[in-house]
């Protein structure tokens, strides 16, 4: 299954949306909910179907200058791929 490409525009899949409270934000989907914190939440908040995967990665790489940029890319790719597998994210 394909990882996102730089030009991909990740977004929440049909029927998935944000819910919960500001302190405990969740993504609601048919079978349940995922609680999101930290970087995971930050990444998914960027997945608005407008920004490209390339832009999202660049921003994170600029923010976390201590981390290996290649690792950031690999981690976020995998994160989005897993969510796509669950039909929570599309790109």
């Amino acid at each position, binding site marked *: 299954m394909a990882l996102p490409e730089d030009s991909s525009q990740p977004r929440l899949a*049909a029927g998935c949306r944000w819910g919960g409270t500001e302190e405990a934000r969740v993504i*609601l989907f*048919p079978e349940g909910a995922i609680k999101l914190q930290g970087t995971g939440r930050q990444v998914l908040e960027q997945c608005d179907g407008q920004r490209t995967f390339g832009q999202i990665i660049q921003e994170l790489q600029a923010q976390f200058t201590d981390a290996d940029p290649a690792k950031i890319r690999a981690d976020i790719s995998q994160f989005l791929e897993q969510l796509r597998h669950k039909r929570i994210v599309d790109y």
Partner: protein
Amino acid sequence: MIPNPLALIAEVTHRCPLHCVYCSNPLQLAGLSSELSTAEWVNILQQAGKLGMLHAHFTGGEPLARPDLTELIAAARAAGLYTNLITSGIGLAEKRLQALVEAGLDHIQLSFQDSREDSANWIAGAKAHAYKIELSSMIRRHKIAFTVNLVVHRQNIDHLEEMIAFIEELAPQRIEIAHTQYYGWALQNRAALLPTRPQLEKAVQAVEAAEKRLAGRIRVDSVVPDYYARFPKACMGGWGRRLMLINPAGKVLPCHAAEVIPGLAFENVREQTLEFIWQQSSSFQRFRGEEWMPEPCRSCNQRAEDFGGCRCQALLLTGNATATDPACSLAPAHHIVEAALAEANSTAAISQPISAGSFVQLQQRARSFWSYRTNPE
């Protein structure tokens, strides 16, 4: 404090245009005259939101049989709930679908009985199949989640691959392969529904192949039927741990079948709040936690995984709701399930799979070995 429930199962009516032989509704169905009013349901949904629940699953019977369904969906959304409609699709035309989506419907789970029309209609006891196909393309035009649910059993499981390919054409985001659970009507019809072991093994392979093939496009969810499993299912995620079910007449139950358990008194939303019932009712506390457990559950490592299995199944098969679920290979009463499996796997079984044939031929055959779900008064 007991953690809040996560989801509300709203059985808004027991009326249904289908008569599926595998229906897990209780044999004692609630009639129209006892159903909760719109205002009562709106109040329940508001309470559910305040209690911190995240999902409202509208089910039945057929929820579309309620003319106020759009209003109920809107009320659930207003209460902050994710809304899921579990439906046969009968009664859903484009205009009503549009209204439901505008009211905030998040997800439709549409059931199919088979890929073959005659067989599907035979299992449902109604001519519903062609319309469900039509409805699928309508649903896809809306921006909501779409799951196709397929209930499998002895009569259709032999062509599971064909059924999955059929569903793939309908292009949902999810396929749920649900093995029949033996409660209510399904338990009555068990001999005609319980698959053989070779059937099951072939089905497991078909599901695994489909998962791989459809990865990233269609999510495939499936659970091994508990009769053939080593350990029982974690029924409802544990009694009184995650879910509250409201039946059409307002009774609040820990699960679909709980009313079969003698000696339990269930509160009604007309008299008590959901919060009180969740926190304090004797029915929700009865099998919560581990205190009630007999051996071998009490000292078993699995007890935090499966919570001793299903209380209703224990009652239905052993006559004792506090027994270890007989589906468990360690249960003292496991021989009851083994006997059912032995019969299902015997060559003399009363109902060899017969899903091929015209609707009329199938119907004639059906009379001899299963009974259709009826409708409440």
